[in-house]
């Protein structure tokens, strides 16, 4: 049983999705319970997985799907590989999915109308895809899982209004270009190495001394371009703001924290394990510098675009663009501390983006207003929601003891170690802009005058259990859990950083 944990994480939501589809469109509570139970089981396995990785001597678990044994020293089947970074990111994905299912309970009826069962099915498939991306050790399987994730997210985004359908269409075009570039890159690697297993590709390149070959370089460039398109790295970010802000609230609030972060994980995986730090950083001295500058531009542009927004969700999506710049820059600093900061920021950014998106969804639901002016006087009428929002905001700005402070700390100390002061300056500048952005909201919420109290839109199936903050507990609780996770990831940063440091391969 215990050796199957990594496969069970994937299987639970996969069968959950099937079951939900079979349950049909009428039994909403049954659908919700199925999804909840499957994701809870998946979360338990993910936490078990972390314990197993901690207990194992080598620090990474391997699982051959279907029991295909290796032949002549090469893997034949698809292999799952879980090291500490993968275990933590998988746990993050399923926990965010689980908490978001609780959040979806009261909201999904009015946002999805008769498509509730499809929503739960697609959502669980999306989580299967994301967990698979993180755990798989097969370059082609990674492509398939990226496409599974993308297909489900296109469909989920298109469930919104007509603007959502249009932004989903643009996302399909951009997403397909990105995934196809990745696939092409894998093809070039396959020509040179004859294998698809990530570790085997790496060892064949090592033993055959293929580093200098132009095919390998083309493969690297194509794969990187593909991944950057998928993660919305600045010049390629065009699809993200519309897709995430027009998506239904329950969809946006878990897609925004997960998708880009998992793609950053893929980038780290490709850089450090597939090609190896030695290749990436030695061949990349010229354009390594260029990429750090691109990430600096991403950080600054993302911050300015966010500052210019008057729509709360749009603003948060531009902040994601800036955060992606943090992580890409950290990964290319060519230094252990920078990579550690990038890895830690995957976890902390997921926590704080989740927290902010949940709070924003609640505020939009409660006030029926997308604009920043909706926050006026909200501390008085919905104190708990605003507390959650403030925790997320402080983390975005980077104040201790929230996780945002520590990830910036690791990133900045990495940049100082290699003497990249412009990256340090960009991080500090973005913190300042975030401070302006969020304090103007918090100030309005705290000192602003309340202008009448609107009533909560009534749920499709009758009277919602409106209590404190005039928001159902099933929405308030996830927000407080997310805010708690922002603090917990921050307080236990040394433990997490210690675990992650052990996962970084020697450069």
């Amino acid at each position: 049983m215990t050796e199957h944990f990594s496969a069970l994480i994937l299987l639970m939501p996969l069968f959950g999705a099937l079951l939900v589809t079979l349950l049909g469109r009428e039994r909403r509570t049954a659908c919700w319970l199925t999804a909840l139970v499957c994701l809870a089981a998946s979360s338990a396995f993910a936490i078990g997985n972390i314990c197993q990785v901690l207990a194992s001597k080598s620090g990474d678990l391997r699982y051959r799907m279907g029991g295909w044994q290796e032949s002549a020293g090469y893997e034949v089947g698809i292999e799952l590989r879980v090291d500490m970074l993968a275990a933590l990111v998988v746990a993050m994905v399923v926990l965010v999915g689980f908490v978001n299912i609780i959040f979806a309970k009261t909201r999904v009826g009015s946002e999805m109308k008769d498509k509730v069962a499809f929503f739960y099915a697609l959502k669980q498939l999306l989580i299967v895809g994301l967990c698979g991306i993180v755990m798989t050790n097969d370059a082609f399987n990674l492509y398939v899982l990226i496409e599974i994730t993308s297909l489900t997210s296109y469909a989920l985004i298109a469930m919104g209004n007509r603007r959502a359908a249009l932004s989903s269409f643009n996302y399909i075009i951009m997403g397909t270009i990105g995934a196809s570039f990745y696939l092409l890159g894998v093809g070039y690697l396959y020509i040179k190495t004859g294998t698809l297993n990530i570790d085997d590709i790496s060892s064949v390149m090592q033993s055959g001394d293929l580093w200098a070959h132009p095919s390998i370089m083309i493969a690297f460039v194509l794969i990187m371009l593909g991944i950057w398109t998928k993660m919305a790295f600045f010049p390629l970010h065009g699809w993200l703001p519309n897709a995430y802000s027009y998506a239904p609230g329950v969809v946006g609030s878990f897609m925004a924290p997960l998708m880009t972060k998992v793609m950053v994980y893929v980038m780290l995986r490709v850089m450090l394990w597939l090609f190896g730090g030695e290749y990436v950083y030695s061949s990349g001295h010229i354009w390594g510098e260029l990429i750090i500058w691109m990430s600096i531009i991403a950080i600054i542009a993302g911050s300015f675009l966010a500052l210019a927004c008057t729509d709360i969700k749009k603003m948060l999506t531009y902040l994601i663009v800036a955060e992606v710049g943090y992580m890409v820059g950290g990964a290319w600093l060519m230094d252990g501390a920078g990579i550690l900061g990038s890895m830690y920021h995957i976890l902390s950014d997921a926590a704080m983006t989740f927290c902010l998106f949940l709070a924003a969804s609640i505020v939009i639901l409660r006030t029926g207003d997308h604009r920043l002016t909706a926050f006026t006087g909200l501390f008085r009428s919905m104190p708990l929601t605003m507390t959650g929002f403030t925790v997320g905001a402080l983390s975005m700005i980077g104040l201790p003891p929230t996780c945002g402070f520590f990830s910036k700390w690791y990133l900045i100390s990495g940049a100082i170690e290699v003497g990249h002061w412009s990256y340090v300056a960009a991080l500090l500048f973005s913190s300042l802009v975030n401070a302006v952005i969020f304090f103007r909201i918090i100030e309005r919420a705290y000192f602003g005058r309340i202008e009448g109290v609107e009533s909560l839109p009534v749920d499709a199936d009758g009277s919602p259990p409106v209590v404190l903050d005039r928001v159902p507990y099933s929405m308030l609780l996830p927000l407080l859990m997310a805010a708690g996770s922002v603090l917990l990831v921050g307080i236990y940063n040394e433990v997490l950083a210690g675990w992650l440091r052990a996962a970084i391969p020697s450069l």
Partner: protein
Amino acid sequence: MEFLAAGFIEENIVPKFNYWVYVILMMIGLFAMITKNNLIKKLIGMAIFQTAIILFYVSIGVKAESGIPILGHEQHHEIVEEGRASSEVIKKEKFANPLPHVLMLTAIVVGVSTLGLALAISQRIYGSFNTLEEDEILDQLRPGGHD
């Protein structure tokens, strides 16, 4: 036109013909996806783009003078009935590499489902905007903020 001399064509274009074709097809697809105004034309571009990559993969499995990678009756007989080692009977030079072809089966499935989903979404777009021209859709969206 110096560089299109016969020598250049023989050395660089003829032996690598499949790669040239895939690159050209891919560029046609990319061009359509980025510049076309009509959403359906964009999707046609997307289909061409994905097919170009499939062509690339299929062509890398080919070897000179090799056949389809299916075990003939005699070879099966030799391995199973006479108990000879499979490495003696199966000469890998005789068979095209089946792996890229198998990979492309999956990629075709992915491509078809992406195209299907995109067509369904463009149907929804047509239902709510009454047009599939991107500029007309953007015109309709311009005056209002959120809707």
